[in-house]
């Protein structure tokens, strides 16, 4: 609560640069919480999460820039598209073992990116420009402080939904499937449908984040949705502590803040980031703030 209050008043005192970085951190919080449902709750390795984020961003991008659809109306369409993408990738492949699932999700992520790069409607390799800025009760959302609040709200919403899911019937079913698939099935949990729910809900988080990302940037290109992006989101989840909401938030912030804090190092900063990541994993293999498991 106190933290949420502090987060609310930050735009009154912080510079635009700080706001930009923090907005980015909230944005990654939403993505990481979404992936956390798939990886942390249900224990499914997903190496193509950027694909769902791409589906959301492109849905909004195409609908607003080429068909002139109002931004807010694109969100339900994007949600439907991401759910569909979640079912398409999840449906036929969820019976696979974890490592094979990893390569299939990776392949799916690459397919989405290459399709976006080669279709006309997605603007090809140069991407889409001129995505409409959303209006909120007549006020155009354009300044960085507007988007700070937008992403903060999304992050809070994502936390709330994640929390409710974790303690729901479905959340417990995910946990059983994660710990012991066969035992879960023996207890009457339909593991394929339960895993599919994880994929679909995770996809919706990514899709909605993608919509607002497109609106904030007003331009998107396929290079935003590479394998590296998927890996980065996964890093946030594992680095912070899989399955635990505060841990995942810490992970998302570490992901965004680290390269910024070490900006002075220039081209060496990703190297330093990687080394620090390695050290964190070696000394805290369960993440910075792990979930307690008995």
């Amino acid at each position, binding site marked *: 609560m106190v933290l949420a209050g502090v987060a609310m008043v930050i735009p009154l005192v912080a510079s635009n640069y700080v706001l930009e970085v923090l907005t980015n951190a909230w944005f990654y919080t939403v993505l990481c919480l979404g992936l956390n449902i798939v990886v942390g709750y249900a224990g499914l390795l997903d190496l193509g999460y950027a694909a769902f984020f791409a589906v959301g961003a492109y849905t909004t991008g195409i609908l607003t820039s080429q068909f002139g659809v109002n931004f807010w109306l694109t969100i339900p369409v994007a949600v439907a598209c991401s759910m569909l993408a979640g079912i398409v990738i999840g449906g036929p*492949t969820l019976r696979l073992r974890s490592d*094979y699932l990893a*390569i299939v999700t990776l392949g799916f992520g690459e397919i989405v990116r290459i399709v976006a790069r080669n279709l006309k409607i997605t603007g090809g390799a140069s991407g889409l420009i001129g995505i409409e800025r959303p209006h909120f009760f007549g006020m155009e959302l354009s300044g960085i402080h507007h988007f700070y609040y937008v992403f903060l709200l999304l992050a809070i919403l994502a936390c709330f939904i994640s929390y409710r899911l974790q303690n729901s019937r479905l959340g417990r079913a995910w946990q059983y499937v994660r710990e012991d698939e066969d035992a879960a099935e023996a207890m009457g949990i339909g593991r394929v449908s339960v895993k599919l729910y994880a994929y679909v809900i995770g996809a919706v988080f990514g899709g909605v984040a993608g919509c607002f990302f497109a609106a904030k940037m007003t331009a998107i290109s396929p290079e935003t949705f590479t394998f590296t992006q998927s890996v980065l989101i996964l890093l946030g989840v594992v680095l912070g502590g*899989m399955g635990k909401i505060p841990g995942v938030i810490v992970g998302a912030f570490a992901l965004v803040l680290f390269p910024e804090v070490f900006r002075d190092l220039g081209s060496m900063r*990703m190297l330093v980031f990687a080394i620090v990541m390695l050290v964190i994993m*070696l000394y805290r293999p369960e993440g910075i703030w792990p979930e307690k498991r008995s």
Partner: protein
Amino acid sequence: MSNLDIFLQQLANGLILGSFYALVALGYTMVYGIIKLLNFAHGDLYMVGSFVGFLILSAISGLLGDSWAAILCSMVLSMLAVGLLGVLIQRVAYQPMLSAPRLSILITALAVSMVLSNTVMALTNGEYKAFITDLGYDGVDIGNVFVTYTQIVLVVSAAFLMVVLYLFVHKTLYGKAMRAIAIDQDACRLMGINVNRVIALTFFIGSALATAAGVMAGVYYGSIHFAMGFVIGLKAFTAAVIGGIGSIPGAMLGGLVLGLLEAFGTQIPAIGTEWKDVFSFGILILLLIFKPTGLLGKTEIERM
């Protein structure tokens, strides 16, 4: 060119591409087979190997000239050097993580991959390096298909390395130990096998094979870059999965299948070069749906 000629030319291209993939995929599959780790840093070892080979070649070309002897020599030396680097990485980054959750060790591998590629990027300022050899484009016509000597030598040496590996794994004591550890590590430890040493040896061989492929690719394509490990890492991973990850003949077969798929994929009018990756990933996904353990993989039950 007639259709048959195009077919043969793509067959040759596919075999060359496939032998690179197969060499890298072998390291993936061996490491996976023995400690169940998807070593995402493997593609970067290929890249590092290519740079080390480049350095050694520039150092010794004054001595031996731009000859096959120089290339062979630099390939062997860089295989040794990067093989040891692979062992070092295993000791520092993977050994302490063997009992950690599987995803954590996967992230560690990703971190190692970033360390390797960013180090090389910092050292080379992100520039392409020209891998100049004086081999030219001499070759022979087989039917109407032109194959350079370079291509022939590369395919032959890749095949040679694979045969040696196969014999090593199936005929020597260490190979037997490797196969045994893949089945049950604890039992091997009880039987008095030095498990850590065998794991280190596996990393050495895998890294050395990736290096061989890296040096070959440098010679073949003529330029090297710090980011080149990423794509080949993905492709090798795909190849290993197609063949059935953990299976050594599977990796060889998977590499060749993937190389041929890509070569022929570019010839299908609707696919072309832009869609060839969609094509190969699509085939991969279809294959896994119908044959979830890959072409030569064994069925096994395990969880994350």
